[in-house]
């Protein structure tokens, strides 16, 4: 399914490959080339948007593994990002660690926070789990504010710029490459994690956790694994975000971000690596549209129109997708591809 006619897979490895044909490899190569020449053609503003989108993609990949594949809905993803971001920020700013050592530690700390707040998931699911993760978000942010001496509380924390050897990644271009490298790596990992034994166990748990347990899948182990992996992704994203701004503040991880990450998943299509990318890109583009249209609207209607436009447009887009396109952009994209592949026929066989 999905390949051009006349594509035959002769071995299992060929059948399971992510990139199956030369065409697939060509598209991948073209995309990587495109990414690497972006800074030559685009302004700093566009690069910033792409960097932020890349960070969102990493975060949404984590949420996709946790929610899309394992079915454990988390509405505290920004909180876990905050754990990762603050851990690496503190290690860099207070202990003088290099960025490369601090980032994995941040990711690990976020993963451990995920394990702790994932514990209730062994007993509860659905709405109850959402509440537990919302609680996680608020408790994490509150704790960060309370630990004023280490985290700087509400004042925030200045973080030194990351550096590779002697090259300090201070320009937008440098950081763009860094984030894109992480995004590509995260995507590759996410795509492959869900194809492993653990990934199949996640899907079984999502579809019916009782049945999965009867089949011998350890819910205890795999639910916590999903939380750990999802939150490690969040930690990496949080760390990249904090180092990008060279400043850590609890305002960078608001509760509504946790909601929008779920929204991205819904808009893109849940339980699909491509969907996570589609969703993150689509909602970030919507954000940009709102930032562009907002001031015009504010001038024309009322000063608060820009702020309300952001809220209303996000809410509407999610409602529209839930009602009219519940399988997300990814599904629509597959349908479009299938249409052109099969033309002039309407379906296969």
């Amino acid at each position: 399914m999905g390949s051009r006619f006349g594509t035959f897979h002769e071995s299992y490895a060929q059948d399971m490959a992510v990139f199956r044909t030369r065409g697939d490899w060509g598209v991948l190569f073209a995309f990587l080339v495109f990414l690497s020449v972006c800074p030559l053609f685009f302004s700093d503003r566009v690069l910033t948007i792409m960097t932020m989108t890349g960070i969102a993609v990493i975060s949404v990949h984590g949420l996709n593994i946790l929610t899309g594949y394992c079915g454990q809905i988390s509405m505290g993803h920004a909180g876990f990002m905050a754990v990762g971001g603050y851990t690496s920020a503190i290690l860099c700013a207070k202990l003088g660690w290099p960025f490369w050592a601090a980032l994995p530690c941040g990711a690990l700390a976020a993963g451990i926070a995920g394990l702790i707040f994932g514990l209730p998931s062994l007993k509860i699911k659905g709405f109850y789990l959402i509440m537990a993760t919302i609680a996680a978000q608020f408790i994490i942010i509150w704790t960060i504010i309370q630990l004023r001496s280490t985290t700087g509380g509400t004042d925030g924390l200045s973080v030194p710029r990351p550096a590779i050897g002697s090259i300090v990644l201070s320009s937008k271009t440098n950081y763009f490459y860094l984030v894109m490298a992480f995004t590509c790596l995260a995507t590759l990992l996410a795509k492959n994690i869900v194809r492993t034994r653990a990934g199949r166990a996640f899907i079984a748990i999502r579809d019916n956790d009782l049945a999965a347990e009867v089949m011998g899948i350890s819910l205890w182990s795999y639910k916590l694994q999903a939380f750990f992996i999802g939150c490690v992704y969040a930690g990496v994203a949080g760390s990249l975000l904090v180092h990008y701004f060279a400043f850590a503040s609890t305002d960078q991880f608001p509760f509504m971000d946790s909601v929008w990450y779920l929204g991205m998943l819904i808009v893109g299509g849940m339980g699909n690596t491509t969907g996570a990318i589609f969703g993150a890109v689509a909602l970030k583009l919507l954000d940009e549209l709102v930032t562009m249209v907002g001031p015009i609207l504010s001038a024309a209607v009322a000063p608060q129109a820009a702020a309300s436009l952001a809220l209303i447009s996000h809410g509407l887009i999610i409602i529209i997708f839930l009602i009219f396109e519940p399988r997300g952009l990814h599904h629509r994209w597959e349908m479009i591809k299938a249409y052109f592949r099969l033309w002039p026929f309407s379906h296969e066989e």
Partner: protein
Amino acid sequence: MTFFLQLVVTGFALGMIYALIAIGFVIILKCSEAFNIAQGHFVLIGGYLGYTFLVTLSLPIWAALGLAIATAVVMGLLIERLTLRPLVGQPILATIMVTIALATILGGLATLIWGAEYKAYHGLLPTITLKVGAISIPSESLIGLIVSTATVVILMLFFRYTKIGLAMRATAEDLQVVQSVGIKATTVYAVSWVISSVVGVIGGILLGGVSGANMELAEVGLKAFAVVLLGGVNSIGGAIVGGIILGMLENVAAGYLDPLLPGGGLAKVFPFFVMIIVLIFRPYGLFGLVRIERI
């Protein structure tokens, strides 16, 4: 001791308002199995409606309450028909996300109409101060207590004696049986949304009378979740008991612990600690049904 009793009494009145808001949540959950995250935003809209009717239009309290309820009825009907009805039977995440989206839209509308500003109408409600020994009960708390108790009693009577109320309770028991005896489930859904938006708006006006209307009113919704988790998500009695317990606990904890903690603001996170503890040790709350699952 006086300080403690004072905290308990004001906490009790606050808890009754929480209970009122939580009841709106429980009614929707029981009737249509939808978790209404937007409950807090009904409260927000209520708070601002109270400002519009009491201050901008300077109407008497009964007219303001009547108009606010009428607005809430329209809001509830529109929300149910436009967003929730197409999603009947969809997975739980869909209904939750749609109510979250609703919450942001309501927040956006409040920003657009009222400018997300702090609007005080403190002191516009009639002042009755009651003194019991050394404890004084502020008039806002007293009015909150009276109105929310009255609303709860009206709801109890509604569910016991009216036809639609009985239909709603039956729907909560078993949807298929209800449909087979000719009760329209869609009517029941619509009425449940209307009721919860009305109680949310009433709660909003009461809270607005205590602390003024601002965007933070929506956070009361999160407290209502802690209340329903504590009381058990499908029990109206549980919502009342849970609301009172949480209101008192929160007030006492904030009164004693806030001076000790540097950042303060314990009242804001307190419900979440309650939530986590309840979820870990007693996930179905005090009076909730323990669900037995089958494959």
